């Protein structure tokens, strides 16, 4: 018998996990390797605000128990960074110099938090929220009655901001173009939404461009945000929350088309016959909007992974899920977003 096919999945988020589970259901014999930079098995990043409600043990955040992976013979490689994918030889090179051959590759690397280029130099002094570790560092550095400055305020960030508010912390939101990402409210709705946030107790600052983030002189903790107009603001932590950009750097030699994300067909295939993509990493042409959409609704991400897995196994299903993109304020001033409704 020939060697079983080796299906490699880059990324261990919803899409990757969904794909692994589906591949195993469809092929009891194949090899499945899941490569992730994370240290933990799959957990839902959108659950991370729960940490501030006392759920700090990562075991409780896991989507499935660890034994799931061994029972389903899914090789979970954590702490592995893919540095290069060679489409010609169908090989993946990892940062630790291991080379892995794949028969099929599904890229579910997702998105990395976008940081406006003007703030790049300040990145080390800001608190991300993209992983359990980052979230726990934020939890550690933000006291219970502390003050957080959030820059941007995408929908994940606003969820966090409201949680922080509910748990006794003070939040200042410095808006920018990515506020409410991935929604793109018009000016009128945006004003209503900001008003609603202000009513909930978030201090909203508009039309201010942050220039630098520093630590207060002589202090060990805390942050100072300086704006381009020369004003400053102090806080315990500064949280950038400006949406996601796809992680594709390692795909440059793969022989697939990339704009900001990986360009895929509705069947989620790339321009390489053995490479597929699902989730936030891919851009799909939307004929109605005449644009490459690269956010497809996080609830659909797992569906995409499962669909890609079936297509890898020979199906020809089309990803045609409408992204329900709606955000509104109700009579009580509460914000409702399709992004949040699980």
């Amino acid at each position, binding site marked *: 018998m020939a060697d079983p096919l080796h299906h490699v999945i880059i990324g261990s988020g919803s899409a990757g996990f969904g794909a692994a589970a589906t591949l195993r259901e469809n092929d009891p014999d194949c090899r499945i390797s899941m490569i992730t930079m994370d240290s933990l098995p799959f957990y839902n990043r959108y659950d991370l605000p729960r940490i501030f409600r006392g759920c700090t043990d990562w075991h409780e955040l896991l989507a499935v128990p660890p034994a799931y992976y061994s029972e389903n013979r899914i090789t979970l490689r954590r702490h592995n960074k893919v540095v290069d994918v060679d489409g010609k030889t169908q090989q993946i090179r990892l940062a630790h110099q291991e080379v892995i051959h794949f028969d099929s590759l599904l890229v579910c690397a997702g998105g990395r938090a976008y940081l406006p280029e*003007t703030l790049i130099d300040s990145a080390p002094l800001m608190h991300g929220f993209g992983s359990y570790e980052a979230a726990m560092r934020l939890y550690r550095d933000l006291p219970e009655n502390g003050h957080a400055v959030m820059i941007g305020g995408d929908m994940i960030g606003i969820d966090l901001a409201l949680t922080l508010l509910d748990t006794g912390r003070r939040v200042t939101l410095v808006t920018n173009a990515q506020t409410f990402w991935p929604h793109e409210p018009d000016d009128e709705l945006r004003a209503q939404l900001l008003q609603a946030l202000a009513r909930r107790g978030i201090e909203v600052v508009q039309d201010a461009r942050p*220039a630098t983030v520093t630590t207060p002189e002589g202090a060990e903790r805390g942050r100072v945000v300086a704006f381009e107009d020369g004003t400053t603001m102090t806080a315990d932590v500064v949280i950038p929350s400006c949406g996601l950009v796809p992680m594709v750097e390692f795909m440059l030699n793969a022989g697939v*088309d990339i704009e900001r994300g990986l360009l895929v067909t509705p069947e989620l295939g790339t321009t390489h016959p053995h490479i597929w993509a699902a989730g936030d990493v891919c851009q799909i042409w939307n004929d109605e909007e005449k*644009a490459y959409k690269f956010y497809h609704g996080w609830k659909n991400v797992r569906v995409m992974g499962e669909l890609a897995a079936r297509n890898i196994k020979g199906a020809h299903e089309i990803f045609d899920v409408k992204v329900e993109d709606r955000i509104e304020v109700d009579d009580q001033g509460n914000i409702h977003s399709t992004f949040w409704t699980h």
Partner: protein
Amino acid sequence: MAGNDELPPPRLSSTDSDTEDIEYSDDPRDFGWVRENIPCQTACPAGTDIPTYIWEIMRGRHGESYEINREANVLPGVLGRICSRPCEDMCRHGWPGNGDPVSICHLKRAAADLKDVGHRLKESLYAPSGKKVAIIGSGPAGVAAAHDLSLMGHDVTVFEREERPGGMLTYGIPEFRLPRDTLHEEIKNALRLGVELKCGVTIGNGEGEIPLSQLRKDFDAVLLATGCMQAIPLPLRDDPQGSQVDRVENAEYGFDFLLDMHRGKGKTVGRRVAVVGAGFTALDCARVARRLGAEEVTIHLRTTEEYIPVTKDEILEARRESIGIKGLRTPVALKADDQDILTAVEFVQNRLGGWRENGRRKAIAINGSEFDFECDTLLIAIGQRTSHDWLDEKIELDRWNNARTDENGMTSLQGVFAAGDYVKGASTVIEAIGQGREVAEHIDTWLMGRPRRKRVVKIERVTAPLRERAFDFIDRHHVPTEPVTERISAPTSEVELGYDGDLALEEAKRCYLCNLHYKIDVDNCIYCRACIEVAPKNCIKMVEGIQINPDGTYGSLQETREWDHVGAIWIDNTECIRCGACYYVCPTQCISITRNRLVTQEV
């Protein structure tokens, strides 16, 4: 486990006596070694001897370093600022697992900036030949050729249409990237060996202009180096020649925009500026627009960021200046109000198509995906082309409408040579300089009836490794830049501030000095693998063979773990990072080091 076999520290202050033994080789395998192993130099169109000039910076000899640069490129201070840096893309330090490339370009600038105030240029002159050469155009190709030809004893006259020499350097590149005093000092030095510079003189058919045929009579040879001084028109839907651009107010070609500005014409832009194009000119236009007060500047690309021919630093600086970059769109129409004032640009969305010959991608429009992008200024920078209507004698053109030249750089007219963008089409400054040098040599050969110089590999003994392993962990030093807020208020002041002496030394230490060749004397090797044990990478191998390329150079090593096949233990110089660890541990002292450089010899 840490042991007690302390090694003597590597000697940094090696002197010239380390090069007492010298050989010269013209074997293709040695040329191949240089090409494979000094990727930065190979990538440089001018063939700059990068490791050697960085080594001189490491030794604190900035003047020497400047001179080595100047052998290949007469404008080191200029290129140290605005070079497209093909070398850094190939730098071994940037290879997977090795970190970031050495800041070769900034080091070049450091050599220029940090050389002694009273530094004397050193050049060996040939005796006067009695031959006269005319050069049309004082851009980088013209200046480089004029310098080399004058050095070789010829009597050179340069004709320049504009008021000042420098071509695109003077009239195309904004001052915040290239200060004019640096530029003009270096041009002056390049032309100081008796070159006659005639500015404000136009070669052409018009009144008061000198026809080419006249030059052919007055000079033994003529070099056309007029570059690409005409913007390529923007093809629009139903308007392939882009006549809308001339008609609509506030839509302009970026090249003309910059040219006018540098000729001293006051330029203004609106609040929302769109730039179309993907090269340095497009980025320069966008950054100038920001400095002229535009609040929202976006660059629109036909393909994607990945495929545009500018440095990553340049893109980052643009983004820091709040310039947006949008991919996969092609302008198809200009929208104007009833007074023909621009209101928007209509774009069509693209998808990526196949590959073009230059390694970039084709963009294919998606039917029906047109949309409007509102803006009040449009700058178009999709390229420049040559023009030939000024010639009174026809020369043959190639299919891109550039001058066709033979392998010696001569056009279809006897004694008329061409170089730079005029031959290649719009390209980079360093390519123009490389071409200027090359054609100067051809002209010299033609004038004198025989080649007077040739390239050989100079192999000189080095008595000890010149580096420390610790140097490999120094991170790339970003060049200090002016804060963004300062840039807008002082639009001509230089953005990049350059390295000081300490930073230059630290950055220079990062260079692997790839021109050092580590080799094992197989006859004395006992195959004990002591060198392999200390190797920092998979750089020393047990080999049974080597691939030989069709051109006689070496390909990759064939490794083996079977003891009876191990013909040699060999240092894979393409993996070697010249750390010197192996040199110190060899029990039979069979590892030696040479410095292999490409040099020019008298024939």
